[in-house]
């Protein structure tokens, strides 16, 4: 970075580099397999539903407007400001306007992509279930994209020292126009909506520079907004890989104490005591388990094809167990635990016992869902028994082998 004007580009590059680093972990994760299955299932379900629509539906325009409105709210201004900026960049505040305008343009990319994708997905539905023509629909999407542009201008204005009341008015004006405009356009007034939002965008772009000129940037406010935005993203990444500065939180969860009891058992066993509490009170392990359970149940409810269902249930149970393996090493960094007078055989046995209960609960949940979904077909019994067999194999054969390998690795 030689000149001040390069600041945005340097930051943007660093930011993108970091995102790609984290995204690699996200896409390498086993959960992605589950998500791809889920998307496939949803797409299949959607195409089936589309086929059954033969005439226009009264609720279709309203649903479309609601989905588009939700889509509009996706995407925030990414300023990439850092806490130290309020000291180091203070004297260069007037140059920050250029920086922020770059930031706004960059922040526009992702939401526009999402909106175009949303528009694309909805197109067959809209053309079948509403009275809109393709031109009217395209005009609606066009107006929506313009409104997103306006939305980000408003978010940029919010970083400057405007009276709170004026900001609130602008905000409600924006959402008012968006709601009314979308409702108009799903009933065929797409051209009016486009003209309205285009007018709003031109008005704002022309006024923005003049509006911003006499105002001070609210550094503290802007930085804390950006921090909050980053934390949300980092929390997401933290589900897949350790993000520095984000500690997965531990909660007491008193109401889950019976579950702790169930996992830990009655006997006084050091590691069952530790593993059960780490699983229930920490978020990293129970989250993995919960996500697989939920996605599994949704898939079971959607997919009626028994062979595919069998594969998915087995795959999910195995992946849950596999993803929970790090729990075994959870306490290895704790000097106190390594000093405990407990043999590693006892630790392994304790881990397998806890895992048995965790996986059996998931199996039980899946089984219930399968029974309800397949309603007494003999396939349901096969899937349930096969799942149980897989769990037994995993616990009795795979797990001891894995843990023994690790033991060898240490020596």
């Amino acid at each position, binding site marked *: *970075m030689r000149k001040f004007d390069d600041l945005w580009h340097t930051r943007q590059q*660093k930011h993108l580099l970091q995102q790609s680093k984290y995204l690699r972990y996200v896409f390498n994760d086993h959960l992605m397999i589950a998500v791809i299955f889920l998307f496939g299932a949803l797409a299949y379900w959607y195409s089936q539903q589309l086929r059954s629509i033969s005439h226009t539906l009264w609720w279709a325009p309203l649903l479309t407007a609601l989905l588009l409105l939700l889509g509009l709210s996706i995407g925030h201004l990414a300023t990439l400001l850092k806490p130290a900026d309020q000291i180091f*960049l*203070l004297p260069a*505040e007037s140059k920050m306007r250029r920086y922020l305008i770059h930031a706004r343009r960059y922040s526009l990319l992702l939401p526009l992509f999402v909106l175009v994708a949303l528009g694309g997905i909805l197109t067959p539905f809209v053309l079948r279930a509403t009275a809109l023509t393709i031109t009217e629909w395209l005009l609606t999407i066009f107006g929506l994209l313009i409104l997103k542009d306006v939305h980000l201008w408003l978010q940029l204005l919010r970083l400057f020292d405007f009276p709170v009341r004026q900001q609130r008015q602008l905000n409600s004006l924006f959402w008012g126009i968006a709601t009314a405009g979308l409702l108009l356009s799903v009933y065929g007034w797409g051209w009016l909506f486009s003209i309205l939002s285009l007018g709003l965008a031109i008005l704002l772009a022309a006024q923005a520079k003049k509006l911003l000129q006499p105002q*001070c940037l609210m550094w503290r406010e802007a930085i804390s907004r950006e921090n909050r935005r980053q934390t949300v993203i980092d929390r997401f990444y933290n589900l897949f890989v350790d993000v520095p500065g984000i500690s997965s939180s531990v909660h007491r969860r008193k109401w889950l104490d019976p579950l702790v009891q169930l996992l830990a058992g009655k006997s006084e066993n050091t590691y069952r005591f530790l593993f059960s509490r780490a699983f229930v009170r920490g978020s990293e392990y129970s989250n993995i388990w919960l996500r697989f359970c939920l996605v599994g149940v949704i898939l079971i409810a959607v997919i009626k094809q028994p062979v595919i269902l069998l594969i998915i249930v087995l795959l999910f149970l195995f992946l849950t167990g596999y993803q929970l393996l790090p729990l075994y090493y959870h306490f290895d960094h704790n000097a106190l635990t390594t000093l405990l007078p407990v043999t590693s055989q006892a630790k392994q046995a304790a881990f397998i016992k806890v895992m048995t209960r965790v996986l059996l609960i998931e199996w039980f949940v899946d089984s219930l869902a399968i029974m309800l979904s397949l309603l007494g077909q003999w396939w349901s019994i096969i899937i349930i028994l096969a799942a149980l067999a897989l769990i037994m194999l995993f616990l009795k054969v795979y797990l001891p082998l894995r843990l023994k390998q690790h033991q060898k690795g240490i020596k």
Partner: protein
Amino acid sequence: MLKVENLTGGYQHLKILGDVSFEVHDGEVVGLIGLNGAGKSTTIKHILGLLQPISGQIVLNDQNLQTNLTRYRQQIAFVPETPILYPELTLKEHLALTMMAYQLDSQLAWQNANRLLKLFRLDQMLDWFPVHFSKGMQQKVMIVNAFMTDADLLIIDEPFTGLDPLAVHNLLDLIAEKKAAGKSVLMTTHVLATAQAQADRFILLNHGQIRAQGTVAELAEQFGVAEQDLDQIYLQMAKENGDA
């Protein structure tokens, strides 16, 4: 010269300062003192323009934030109470960024910076990342960063905590140097005995208002304490507040 006139302000919904007025003249060092929560840091944030006044105004050499933002800001250098640094920048890059922001002549600025870095024994660490430094060393980085500019007003928030005795001594020398060059210095501190060495005047804040101001002798007289026992002022004031 810094002029704060009838400043009333605080955070969005929380009024902290009530009708604060004072001046810091060219070549003058003023200590802003008061107990925790008295409004010292809030006053500083208002002068820096990180907070907007509810009423009143702040003028620095006939400029304020509204008339000429860039000019106003470039006349101020700031050492914060807790060092705030960029995790991804080296010491050298921190200084380079400041030079860019203040539009300093880089050759001249580096001359200044090198002298200061040597003084604080940081000259061998230019390629290190200051976020990994100890708190005292980070403080020194912030000091070098502020003192290498030729800002007319230096604002220093709690400068002495965390610094080793040698660095405290050096900092006092640097403040004296700025004073001799006709710059204004405003510093907040609790360590009155140290600040006394360079401060011409003190302003005592209490509950967001100026309780008293003047030289050490004047303050001592007002509160009826001995000059070498200036810390007694805090006790006196706490008694007035009904806290002790």
